């Protein structure tokens, strides 16, 4: 390892100018639970590390109006869990973030880091996609907002320019009767990487599903939004037949690889199973039971 410069600016402008000034050889440090591991493994060798945790906007959770949340990109899972309302509104997003690693990891790991790391198996990403969250990013040319589902573009790659910093996630407000859920399959009970991950977000009016979104992880080079699944669910009563068809839609969009973590056929099958289970949990939460 050569010498590494470390900066911990307190304003976003300072961070952006330092980061963009380094022209791609700098890295943003949020919780560091991916970054430091990758540096130690010799996978990356940054010359500058910009720690963003001292920047207030990036490191706080705000409920801007009732039911509308803006979560800083570097807020750790444990911090987010402390917010009295977020977990009630978005239990699926919170559970996705807080099944990452172990207690120690959860004290550091952030939504921004999980998304920007670009892993197709990142646990919070399918839940963020299902939640239709948007990411605010800032670069030398100002701010822009991107739907989370458009951030991943390939394994380890995002649509952020190499001078842009993820600032915060905005979660849309939803009508009453909404609920979300995230489930993943791992062979163990923790400390593992998702073989398949599935996030489901639903709104019910009476028994009718009026809005739905499904995110699938680890079954393709990027986390997917399964649009066909949403189409099937919306307007239905979440009856068995619909759910079966929705599971099939999930299986159909899988394009996984065979690797040490799972086979193509296993991943494909499991995506349908998780869909069914996640829909059941999200529906229960939507009904408030």
């Amino acid at each position, binding site marked *: *390892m050569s010498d590494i410069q470390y900066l911990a600016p307190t304003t976003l402008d300072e961070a952006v100018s330092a980061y963009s000034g380094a022209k791609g050889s700098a890295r943003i440090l949020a919780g560091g639970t991916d970054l430091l591991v990758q540096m130690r493994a010799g996978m990356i060798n940054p010359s500058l590390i910009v720690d963003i945790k001292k920047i207030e906007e990036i490191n706080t959770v705000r409920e801007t109006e009732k039911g509308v949340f803006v979560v800083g990109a570097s807020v750790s899972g444990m911090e987010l869990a402390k917010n009295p309302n977020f977990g009630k509104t978005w239990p699926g997003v919170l559970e996705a973030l807080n099944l990452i690693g172990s207690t120690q990891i959860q004290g550091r790991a952030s939504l921004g880091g999980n998304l920007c790391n670009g892993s197709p198996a990142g646990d919070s990403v399918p839940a963020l996609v299902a939640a239709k969250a948007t990411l605010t990013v800032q670069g030398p040319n100002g701010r822009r907002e991107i739907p989370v589902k458009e951030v991943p573009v390939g394994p380890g790659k995002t649509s952020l320019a190499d001078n842009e910093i993820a600032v915060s996630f905005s979660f849309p407000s939803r009508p009453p009767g909404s609920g979300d859920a995230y489930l993943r*399959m791992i*062979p*163990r*009970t*923790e*400390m*593992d*990487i998702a*073989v398949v991950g599935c996030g489901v977000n639903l709104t019910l009016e009476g028994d009718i599903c009026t809005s739905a979104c499904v995110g699938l992880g680890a079954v393709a080079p990027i986390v997917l939004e399964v649009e066909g699944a949403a189409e099937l669910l919306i307007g239905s009563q979440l009856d068995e037949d619909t759910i079966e068809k929705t599971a099939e839609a999930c299986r159909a969009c899988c394009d996984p690889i065979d690797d*040490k*973590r*799972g*086979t193509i*056929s*296993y991943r494909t*099958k*499991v995506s349908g*199973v998780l869909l069914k289970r996640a829909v059941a949990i999200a529906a229960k939460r939507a009904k408030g039971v």
Partner: protein
Amino acid sequence: MNDANNKWIGKRTIRPDGADKVTGQATFGADTTMPGMIWGKVLRSPHAHANIRSIDTSKAESLPGVKAVITSADVTNYSPEKSVILGIQDMRWMTRNVMAREKALFHGHPVAAVAATSQKIADQACKLIEVDYEVLPWVVEIDDAIKSDAPILHEFIEFEGKPSNIAGTLEHKKGDVQTGFEEADVIVERSFTTRPVHQGYIEPHACLVSVSADGRATIWSSSQGQFMVRAMTSMLTDIPQSSIRAIPAEIGGGFGGKTIVYLEPLATILSKKSGRPVKMVMSREEVMRASGPTSGSKSTVKMGIKKDGSIVAAQGTYYLQAGALPGSPIRGAVGCAFAPYDIPNVHALGYDVVSNRSKVAAYRAPGAPIGAFAVECVIDEISEAIGMDPLEVRLKNAAKEGTQAAHGPVYPRIGYYETVEAALSHPHREIPLGKFQGRGVASGFWFNAGGESSSQVNITEDGNVVVTTGHPDIGGSRASIANITAELLGIDYKRVSVLIGDTATIGYSNLTGGSRVLFASGMAVTDSTEKVIVSLKERAAKIWDIDPEAVDWEDGYARPAGANAGMFDPLSLEELAERATETGGPIGAGSQLNTAGAEGGFATHMCDVEVDIDLGIVRIIRYTSFQDVGRAVHPSYVEGQLQGGAAQGIGWALNEEYIYDSEGRVDNPGFLDYRMPVCSDLPMLDTVMIEVPNPKHPQGVRGVGEVPLVPPLAAIRNAIYDALGIRFYGLPMSPPVVLEALEQGEAAE
């Protein structure tokens, strides 16, 4: 010694090394540093199999900061033609394992090593070493390795007159299986496979070695035996044992995997060459690629049973992977497979198979879990076939005192029967099971070992006690030794301090392995302590001017006995220590024994599983181990052994496996993808300790550390059958495998 009135034996005393370990003060293998120390690093083969045509180290040597570079030319050679046995190892394979000689035999095999002033320079230097390889076809799996046209690893190994990857066989016979099978009402024959699994110790191999200008070497390292480290290093460096001092560090797990050396001889040679202390620490990846797992296997077991439940014949054939060099634990597989049972006709045969993967090392009851897996699965099937409870079948056929085992011995008093009885009457067996839940049982045996141990017991001038033994303490042996010493002397446990000597401060002591430490060092310490008590009585007799025979030692006091009873005030250990000079000088005694009579250990396990049938995940929901522990000198550490073995067995059965890529490289060399169980995967692992004291040991001790890994594989597999009606014949029973089987089962219906 075996009665319930014991004050210390059987008590859950605080372990002497506990405070240091929980506060981070304990010194493990990588914790020692020295002024002037430099860093050693191993260059490893990028190929699974290759001839080494030449190695050019000149560029590495000229890199500033590099102090020494070594290859196999610097390591003592032993010709492959003639075996040079050291303990359970053969030095002609050891020399080739620590450093590739003619050939690189697996991906990760050391081919050279460097020592440099920083780790970074050592890394760079490794990259500058030019190795000219002739890449050869490679073979990893048993079936491929024993094919007639398989790539041959060692031309000098022959089987049936031809070069072969079968490096050896072992056979046990009793009675005549042919006739036996004719008597059977039901015969079941099944074939099984198991995958190699790593011991998974948390602490990677590490050492620091300093060779002084006059050629004396001091080695600080974490191992299962400082004397093994000394002997192997001596044989691989030609430094006499008297000039090597091996100092044992605290050890962060070994499970058999640290009964051989990897780094110590290399660091010694590097230190000798550079004149500097050299530290070497393996990464987890190096541990997973190049240190021994236990064997993978394939086996076929056939058993015949009569309708009344008596097993009349049993036959087993086992192929075990040795890794790149001969020496798989076929003895454990073949010898232990049928050992819990009194079967009149037994034939067990094992083959040692080499292939291009890291050389296996011992792993708790080496080979025995593989042997038992097949047998205990078949017993489940023959029990079902005759409609008898599998525990009842085990009870009916249980080996007892007087049973002639197929592997040789006639058993003395053993406690196998009692483990089955305990399982039969345990409340675990009565707990109702739900949907997709199942219960399985299996038994197991391990030889246990005695052998050489030394100890020294010294009374300090203030009347306290220091005990020194020669075994690294992996399972809490210091606490148990303190319990025994305190009991014998009749003093408070806190007054006994137990240390582990290095090779210069205590006499030869064999490995911490074979479940032998408390058995053997308990004997040596008992012998030393008894000698000390004799001396204490003599001193009291001298002070009182009576016959030493007329002195009793009781509760830490010398008391006049017999005709003199009550004539003098008792003398305490403190008082006698204070008067040591006038009564004959320092008080202390040592013993050096070759212990015998370890006697086998037996266990029966009961396991409940629940299967998530949509995902294929098997969860262990309840687990109870029943084991004949001889005498639980320190119950907590005996329970710990039982629980640890069950936990490791669960990992082996359900998820652990090496995954190889298309180039013959391990693709999962870390704990993320080599899936050992984590805490939350396990229920509380219950234990039932059955104490059938070993008649050949002063405290009744039997080895307890290895048997616990023998039954779990089959217990889990049999439980899955109970839950799903599906019998598995291979490990691991991981989610994709289970889901696949469920779907095939459905399709078949």
